[in-house]
């Protein structure tokens, strides 16, 4: 299926975009990360969390949304 990956903060500099659609056949956040680590070699060294449906997920979380967000460390305030 096609899912949209959104990038924020310094991750937009790693990927060169703020969002992109990828063709995805896995089931978990871990699987999404594997695909992205293949595409962006330096992403693996970056500190980030993954969210879908506006909630943070763990590697084991099942993909239930067509939009996944990669969030670097927060800097609000």
């Amino acid at each position: 299926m096609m899912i949209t990956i959104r990038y924020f903060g310094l991750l937009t500099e790693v990927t060169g975009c703020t969002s992109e659609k990828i063709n995805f056949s896995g089931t978990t956040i871990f699987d999404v990360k594997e695909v992205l680590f293949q595409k962006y070699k330096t992403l693996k060294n970056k500190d980030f969390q993954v969210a879908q449906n506006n909630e943070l997920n763990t590697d084991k979380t099942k993909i239930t949304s067509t939009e996944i967000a990669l969030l670097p460390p927060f800097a609000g305030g």
Partner: protein
Amino acid sequence: MKNHKPKNAFRKGAITTEFIANSIAKHQVKTSIGAHNIFLGQVRADEINAKKVAAIDYTAHEDMANLKFHEIREAAFLRFDLSCMHIYHSIGNVNAGEICLFVFVSSKRRKEVFPAIEFIVEEIKAKVPIFGKEIFNDQSHQWKVNS
């Protein structure tokens, strides 16, 4: 007044002192309030490797951020006996010396507002997906990380 509807906490650019004054003035008709506590985050002109921060360009996962602001607000109303609570955060460019975060709590009694304001500010720092690009005076940049 409790307001449990999710709302947009983001304000384009710096939060002005007029906006803050207006917010305070609006609470003067609420004569059951005895104490207000206001936290303001101000952009520091930190010097990093001999370069000075001139501004921070804030971006956010806005939908998720507004949901998190809402959850923080709900949690604070549950924990503390508050009359009112408002949270505003800048999005976009905020120059050094300007205000990027405005948290405003009000209660009948002062004892409630002190722990409430600290709780809310710490929760915002930890849970709200906001990102800050520190722009130096030579136009180079680095990404801010909360400590």
